[in-house]
């Protein structure tokens, strides 16, 4: 069925707009109580995230300082400038802002969405998981109280819910598992283990997570993104994901502070972009300079506010909680 032409009216009901305001008030009250500083960093940047799975919108600036025009990127998260603030001695900070990700649109995605991102100096990812839980309990009190909290490691989660060990499995084993046990036939996928682990995560595990708050931590080192690695056998990334009622809500790291390792990861990602025909983007050298100058030991997390509202209100899709979704924007 073709959707009818969207009209001028909002995508969200007025009650949900009210709920959004209440949730944001409570978020700000929470951080104010814990003396975490609210900050506001630019949405437009000369550099962008090199993560091949994050596509930045780009635009052009013409004006003083750029007579011939300069390419600017809309941020996919405020992570890099917030880390520059941390390196400059800001202490713990948070931000509520719009972020932009090209290509992401569906029942739980809108290419423009509201992110709550915060950094806690002196915290590791375990401390921050506890704070995410405290924040969600306070914000959702009387709206959609959290009934259960469950912690998994990535390894336990795959063993229990999919019956495979993600640290020893192979693409062939995952292909067979998806096809024979779950009737899922991926087409044209690269023979890259992380892609296949992501298929199992999104197609098999996420639908089984069920109600309540779920934390997953200790990701494979190859999925570290911007998290530091914890030595061990195998080494794991100090990264966590948060799910509420089966919906992926937040991603956090014990932040990588090593400028050299960060640059190596940027370069690896840039190479993967070239290999898979994803447009190249300039890496954020100012972030590397900030890390070289010294990022305080900290953990950070980014939480999708629209997803939170979607789960809290039991909305059918994320578009139902947006004042105006993409097709009526």
């Amino acid at each position: 069925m073709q959707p009818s032409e969207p009209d001028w009216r909002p995508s969200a009901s007025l009650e949900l707009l009210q709920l959004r305001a209440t949730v944001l008030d409570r978020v700000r009250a929470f951080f104010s109580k814990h003396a975490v500083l609210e900050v506001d960093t630019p949405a437009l940047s000369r550099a962008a995230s090199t993560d091949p799975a994050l596509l930045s919108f780009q635009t052009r600036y013409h004006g003083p300082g750029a007579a011939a025009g300069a390419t600017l990127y809309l941020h996919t998260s405020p992570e890099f400038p917030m880390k520059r603030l941390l390196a400059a001695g800001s202490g713990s900070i948070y931000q509520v802002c719009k972020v932009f990700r090209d290509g992401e649109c569906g029942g739980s995605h809108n290419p423009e969405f509201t992110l709550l991102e915060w950094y806690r100096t002196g915290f590791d990812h375990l401390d921050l998981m506890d704070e995410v839980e405290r924040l969600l309990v306070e914000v959702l009190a009387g709206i959609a109280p959290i009934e259960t909290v469950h912690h998994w490691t990535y390894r336990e989660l795959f063993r229990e819910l999919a019956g495979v060990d993600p640290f020893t499995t192979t693409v062939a084993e995952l292909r067979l598992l998806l096809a024979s046990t779950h009737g899922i036939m991926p087409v044209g996928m690269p023979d890259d283990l992380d892609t296949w682990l992501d298929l199992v995560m999104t197609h098999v595990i996420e639908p089984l997570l069920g109600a309540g708050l779920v934390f997953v931590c200790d990701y494979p080192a190859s999925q570290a993104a911007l998290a530091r690695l914890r030595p061990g056998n195998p080494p794991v990334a100090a990264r966590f994901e948060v799910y509420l009622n089966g919906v992926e809500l937040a991603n956090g790291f014990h932040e990588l502070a090593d400028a050299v390792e960060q640059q190596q990861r940027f370069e690896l990602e840039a190479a993967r972009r070239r290999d898979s025909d994803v447009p190249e983007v300039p890496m954020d050298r100012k972030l590397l300079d900030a890390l070289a100058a010294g990022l305080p030991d900290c953990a950070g997390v980014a939480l999708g506010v629209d997803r939170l509202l979607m789960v809290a209100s039991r909305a059918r899709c994320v578009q139902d909680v947006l004042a105006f979704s993409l097709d009526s924007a």
Partner: protein
Amino acid sequence: MASYSTNEFRGGLKIMIDGDPCAIIENEFVKPGKGQAFNRVKIRNLKTGRVIERTFKSGESVEAADVMDVELQFLYSDGEFWHFMDPQTYEQQAADATAVGDTAKWLKEQDMCEVTLWNGAPLAVTPPNFVLLKVTDTDPGVRGDTSGGGGKPATLETGAVVRVPLFIDIGETLKIDTRTGEYVGRSKE
């Protein structure tokens, strides 16, 4: 060859999967917290009618299936082929038993049907939602019983057998819902 990117996926879009023409039923965009985005789709194989699932990397392209639905009039069956005609152009199409499938039992000469063409040839035939068919055989009607309860089998002029109320007699014309195969009522025509 024409193709569609996953960004063009929507219900009803016709694509080729494993060499067979298929129609998308449902398209879901899924993405892990970090990592590759996927399009998870439910698809109907238009040759077999089976519903299958496939997952594509978002942004990939898939070959388009040259499939279209046309309204054609059923002319006759010669036993091997069922012949249809476009009443505007008089152009004819012959569908074989595979394309016609179970629909054969509802096909009455002159009725308009939806014929799905793949590369210009009939792939599937959908009968009208309601057809009027004459009873050719059934047990004698029971007078006065209009309750419709119980019922009995009746053979219709196309060979279809449906359950009808006890009062129905040979020679009557019945309205049948082809989607459920159920008796709807007696025709006043």
